[in-house]
């Protein structure tokens, strides 16, 4: 029992560390993007200031909203934090819990609540954002399942912790490279980045994730943005731990994948909304190939 508590303690510590560094990772992505586009860009610490800025501002609620609107950001944060607890523990000991299926569906709960809240204020945009978000998540979910399955065959366990620790595959086998590419593509779709969604513009008509947040302000908005950055950081860490078949210290691997996100966002433009299924289908084909290759 003590060991379980101790391991849980480590997991908490790791999750908090990740939360603390998440805005920095987003800041680095933004900075690299700006430099790649001949712009100077804001400081890599800007995201901390933004979160603080929204935190200080009052929250304005429209009279139409229900309790869902207020609890949704907390559910979003809580589920993301819970998912982060399941990451393979690097500080010591094994993770006490962390089945990948639980991981995926805990994240789904958060998304479900955000989609609910987007309809809560009854604006036309919010509903569209919610519908688009669900449309994409429906597509992404089976792809994540396949990515897991591909790893499952190797590690023989559905525990995220075991997956990372038992991962002894050759650095550049066909299967690992294919899975790596596919999971990265999923990561981009899941975290609303270009070419699936555009996190920068406020062209309200084309947004997906941001579209759902239009009615939020103040602390609730601050919490949502922090959670989104947290989720991105978590996915980058997960990607680096389990899917990136390169032998490097984890910090460098995370940085490498963050920079890759910037490069992909610079090289691509946003695709047609109805082309997203083709994009996801491509990743699924890669994953099927990866499974076959094993």
């Amino acid at each position, binding site marked *: 029992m003590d060991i379980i508590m101790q391991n849980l303690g480590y997991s908490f510590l790791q999750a908090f560390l990740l939360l603390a560094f998440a805005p920095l990772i987003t800041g680095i992505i933004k900075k690299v*993007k700006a430099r*790649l*586009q*001949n*712009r100077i860009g804001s400081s890599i610490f800007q995201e901390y200031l933004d979160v603080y800025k929204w935190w200080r501002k009052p929250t304005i609620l429209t009279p139409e909203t229900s309790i869902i609107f207020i609890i949704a950001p907390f559910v979003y944060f809580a589920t993301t934090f819970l998912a982060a607890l399941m990451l393979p523990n690097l500080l010591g000991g094994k993770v006490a819990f962390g089945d990948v299926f639980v991981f995926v569906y805990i994240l789904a709960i958060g998304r479900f609540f955000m989609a609910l809240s987007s309809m809560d204020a009854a604006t*036309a*945009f919010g*509903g*569209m954002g919610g519908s688009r978000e669900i449309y994409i998540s429906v597509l992404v979910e089976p792809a994540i399942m396949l990515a897991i399955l591909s790893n499952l065959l190797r590690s023989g366990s559905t525990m995220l912790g075991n997956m990372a620790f038992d991962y002894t595959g050759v650095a550049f086998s066909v299967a690992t490279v294919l899975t790596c590419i596919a999971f990265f593509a999923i990561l981009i779709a899941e975290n609303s980045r*270009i*070419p699936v969604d*555009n996190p*920068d*513009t*406020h*062209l*309200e*008509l*084309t947004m997906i994730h941001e579209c759902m947040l239009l009615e939020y302000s103040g602390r609730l908005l601050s919490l949502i943005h922090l959670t989104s950055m947290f989720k991105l950081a978590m996915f980058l860490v997960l990607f680096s731990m389990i899917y990136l078949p390169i032998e490097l210290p984890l910090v460098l691997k995370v940085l490498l994948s963050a920079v890759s996100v910037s490069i992909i*966002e*610079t*090289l*691509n*433009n*946003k*695709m*047609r*909304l*109805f*082309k997203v299924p083709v994009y996801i289908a491509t990743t699924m084909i890669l994953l099927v190939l990866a499974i076959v290759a094993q």
Partner: protein
Amino acid sequence: MIKVKADALQGTANILNKNGNHALLAMFGADERATSGKLAIYCLFAHPDKRDVDILKAEFDKNEDSYESLTSVIPASAWYEREIFDMFGLKPKNHPDLRPLVLHENFPEGFHPLLKTEPVDKQIRGTREYEMAVSKGEGLFEVPVGPIHAGIIEPGHFRFSQAGESMLQLDAKLFFTHRGIEKAMEGKTPFEALAMAERICGACSIANTWSYCQAVEKIAGVTVPKKAEIIRTLLLEMERLYNHVGDLGNIPAGVGFSPAISLGNKLKELLMRCNEVVTGNRFLRGMLIPGGVKFDLTEEIVTQVLATLEDVEKGFLDLVQMMEEQDEFKDRIRTTGILRYSTAKDLAMVGVGARASGIKADSRKDFKYGIYDELDFALITKEVGDVEARIQVRIEETKETLKLVRQLIEKWRTTLDVQLICEVPLKAGQAWGVTESARGNNVHWITLDDNGKIDRIFIRSASYPNWPGVAIATNGDIIPDFPLINKSFELCYACIDR
């Protein structure tokens, strides 16, 4: 000028329009009760063979305040008739959509600001109905956007009628910041009102000012010195250059294609700084005046322009290559926002928007002004009418314009004329002026009274006939494509908020 009675307006206009082949350039009202005792409606039709304009004037007797609407025979007149109804109270009978256009719900009914009986400084507030046009039905919903947008752009309200992601109908409510420029210019001499003409729009300052000068010069019956014409033509092409390059760089913003956006912004900035070197103003203001130009260029300035051109051309070719090599970008722009040839013709659309749909119209070729007849450039048209076609028209026109600017600088260097300006006597008269701005032709109509003061000025910028076309081009596309379609037309709000 053909003068008819109000009840003959529809029939005569239909003959002059030649099934849309002689495009309706402008249609506007005038309050001439002080001179002839009547209200009047003027229609200007292009006459491509004569390279001239047919003017039709319909006069209204004292008790007449309505006429048979032209919209059923000339669809392009729909907006003009709504504006005339707002401004003069002349009612088009059987108009399919006679909602207010310029005066929104914050004006009272029965207020017609351009009538001479309304003082220019009248403070007014009131209420009236302003309904947006929407589609109704099971599962349909409306998406309101604007008038305040998430960006530094001008106000405009768009109401989308949606079936899921598909746009069924789009109604645009514009004219939010109506400035009353036409009314404010009345009673001033053309020289006093010049600064206002220059500030109708930022992006087509030269085109508007030159159309204005043309009209004034025609009334005075003077011929502008050759050297002034060369400089004016050069300025107009420089204006087209910075607009086309800026617009091309802005289209990728609709799809988040950031390297192209950055490069486009950089090139536009280079050109605008070059503008400042030439006229002392980034929008090329302060150079044109009725009768000629205010000052000459110098060899030093010209060398600097040529050097900038060199840089910009290199960057521009990079930008073009970037857009052409990006498959995802091609995928977004192809077949998006198709505007059919027949629609563009019915609405008498102008400029890039019309030429991308196969309409062979360019005022630089269709009318005689400046020194365009001595220059070598091609009329660019495309057939498809989608976003890609509009991009291609802009790209090829930019290349033509780069050639033109060099030709013009050569002309300026070799011309033996030295005179820059001529005397413009102000007398009573009426005339039109037209120039091709980056967005299409800008038409001005000026009536001067016996004292040489402006009695009526009508300003029709290129964006005016094209806005209704944008709404139609969106039909059948999905709402995330709207920013892209809108940017591919890149119409101006200020031009219609005059």
